[in-house]
């Protein structure tokens, strides 16, 4: 469905993309993760044909992006990060306008716009000016505007930034429905839980390169980060942590915290608590250190995702 090969782009002396390659199959949900300035937006901009690469090739639905931009644009939908709507127009007028750009007959657009308004729970407010909407409602229309022409591929650039929980849940439901219906989706987000929840595969991008990609399990295998039970104890009894650390095969102590590494943390937790009790250690807090995208990302890039 999408074939990206050796994509390169520089702005002056800054190399924004340095040989990005990936393939996305039909109906796949692909997450693109990276800190600010990693090259996510540049990649999306090139894939959506508003930016030309210096080098590289992009094939979308069999069309070469550079040679057939219009054909490519007809099969993709882009949900921009910012709310790109006309505030003085109503939701219906906005949808009718954005749909008209794809040369769909007016009757078809209207029907589709009403379907989407119902899907996003905004049918009753369809005639109200967008400027009277809440942030979450605007974001819903922002998404609907990208779906009018029933694209085969959807680029979603942080679609849930700054919205209320109700709108977020509704958007999640719609995203899942679109995925179930077979739409190919490329999703960029800062929210790890969203990527973990939706993505079939994830590409981690940093300094203009994809440094790792695969399913969440495949990424977990690639990282050196291990799961652990972390015990925090009273300073007065912290010295005794050394006793039980020596009993555990893979562990370490930092001040009044002890890390007990394990492949099955939940099962081992009770054992560790028992050891602490036996040693007379007064436990203040117990937590799991999980291997998740956040830790994988930190391990691979040395940066927090929000850096």
């Amino acid at each position, binding site marked *: 469905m999408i074939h990206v090969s050796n994509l390169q782009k520089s702005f002056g002396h800054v190399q924004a993309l340095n040989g990005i390659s990936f393939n996305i199959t039909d109906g796949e949900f692909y997450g693109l993760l990276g800190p600010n300035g990693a090259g996510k937006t540049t990649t999306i901009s090139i894939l959506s044909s*508003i930016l030309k690469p210096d080098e590289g090739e992009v094939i979308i639905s069999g069309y070469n992006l550079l040679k057939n931009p219009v054909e490519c644009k007809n099969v993709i939908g882009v949900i921009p990060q910012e*709310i790109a709507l006309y505030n003085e127009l109503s939701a219906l007028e906005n949808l009718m306008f954005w749909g008209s750009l794809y040369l769909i007959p007016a009757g078809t657009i209207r029907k589709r716009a009403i379907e989407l308004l119902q899907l996003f729970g905004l049918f009753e407010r369809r005639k109200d000016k967008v400027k009277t909407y809440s942030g979450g409602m605007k974001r819903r229309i922002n998404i609907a505007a990208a779906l009018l022409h029933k694209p085969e591929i959807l680029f979603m650039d942080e679609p849930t930034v700054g919205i209320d929980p109700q709108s977020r849940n509704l958007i999640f439901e719609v995203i899942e429905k679109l995925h179930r219906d077979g739409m190919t989706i490329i999703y960029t987000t800062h929210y790890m839980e969203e990527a973990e929840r939706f993505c079939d595969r994830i590409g981690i991008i940093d300094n203009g390169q994809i440094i790792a990609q695969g399913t969440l399990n495949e990424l977990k295998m690639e990282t050196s980060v291990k799961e652990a039970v972390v015990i925090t104890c009273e300073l007065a009894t912290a010295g005794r942590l050394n006793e039980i650390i020596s009993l555990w095969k893979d562990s370490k102590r930092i001040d009044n915290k002890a890390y007990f590494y394990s492949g099955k943390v939940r099962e081992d937790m009770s054992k560790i608590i028992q050891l602490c009790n036996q040693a007379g250690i007064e436990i203040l807090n117990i937590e799991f250190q999980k291997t998740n995208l956040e830790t994988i990302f930190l391990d691979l890039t040395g940066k927090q995702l929000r850096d």
Partner: protein
Amino acid sequence: MKRIAIKDLKLFLKDRKTMLITFAIPVALITLFAFAFGGINTGEDDREYTLPITDLDQSEYSKEAILRLDTLKSLKIVEMPLEQARQAVRKGNEDGVLILHKGFADSLRDGGRLPVELQYDQAKEMQIGMLQQSLIPTLSMIPFSTGDVKKSMSRRFDKMMAGSSPKIREEVNTQFDSLFNSVSRGIIPENNANSAFDFGSEIKMTKLVMAKDKSSPNLIQAVAGTAVMMLLFSVAGIGMGLLDEKQEGTLKRLLYSPVNPNKILFGKIISANVISIAQLLIMFVFAGIAFGLDIIRHFPGMLIVILATAYACSAFGVFLASFASTRQQVQGLATLIILVMSAIGGSMIPVFIMPVFMQKLAVISVNYWSIQAFYDVFWRALPITDLTFLSRILILILIGTIMNVVALRMYRKNILRIA
């Protein structure tokens, strides 16, 4: 309080844009207006005024008269056939034409009134009045440059004193001789010769272009000048809409669609044109209803000028927007450019009362060509096939096209930077 004031002053001094708006732009505008109103030279007006002259007498005396007029520093005499000169006046290219009629030499010899006529455009009455005042002293001295003047003046006095006794006639002749010798030797200044002898002092004044309805030149000036200036402000706002789209992300979204990026700009140009046409039409219809501007009789011409003006002005709005990167930049730039164009182009004061170099500068503004074209329609009543009128329309279209082409190039360049 003191600290707040000092902080504010520091912020003010660090804000270059505000400094520019506060000091540099007003100074630039004052300079411009001072030039426009001719106040830069407080002494005599040193502009060279072109005066077409038609010599229908073709005598030695009429040629001598033209030579004398040509010695005036402020005048540039251009001899023209009568019809060509009248056409130039009718088309607004000249203010008036001085005609030395047949019998000029005979009148000089006979001591009669000189058959001199100034045919002019009523819209330029102020200039023509000043011209008349500067011509009279020279014309009044023309008899002194001919050898026959004493004879002709004697004849004139003879005619005047026909019923008087020989003694009185002799006394008057003696006084005349004395006075004539004084003027000839320069004892009495030339300017006073007219009051002394009262010859050549009358110029027949004929309005060649004049009001046929309520469309006075002042009304046309007021309506056309204001309409074009206000239109420029409106289209600057429409141009800013393009930058708003860029800032709000809708332009990016438009680019995601299969629409050709050029068509986005063309769409803006079309909407700017439609709004401009509507605005101009409403302003002229209002002027017609409220002030009696005859828009019905001149409708075809008016419509052509409105279309050409709307095209040029809307191109200006898009042109401005394509150069700037933010709405704020356009606002500052637009205000400055529109005020300058309106000042030099005749929206604020008629171009013909400005100094000559300002009149030459006026041609770079849209306002000038549009206002002149409106004068052609409402005042000079030129037919829409007239070449002078069409040339102004063509220039407006040319200005609009050049600005649209440049805007398109700049827009393409800016689009690539959008992502």
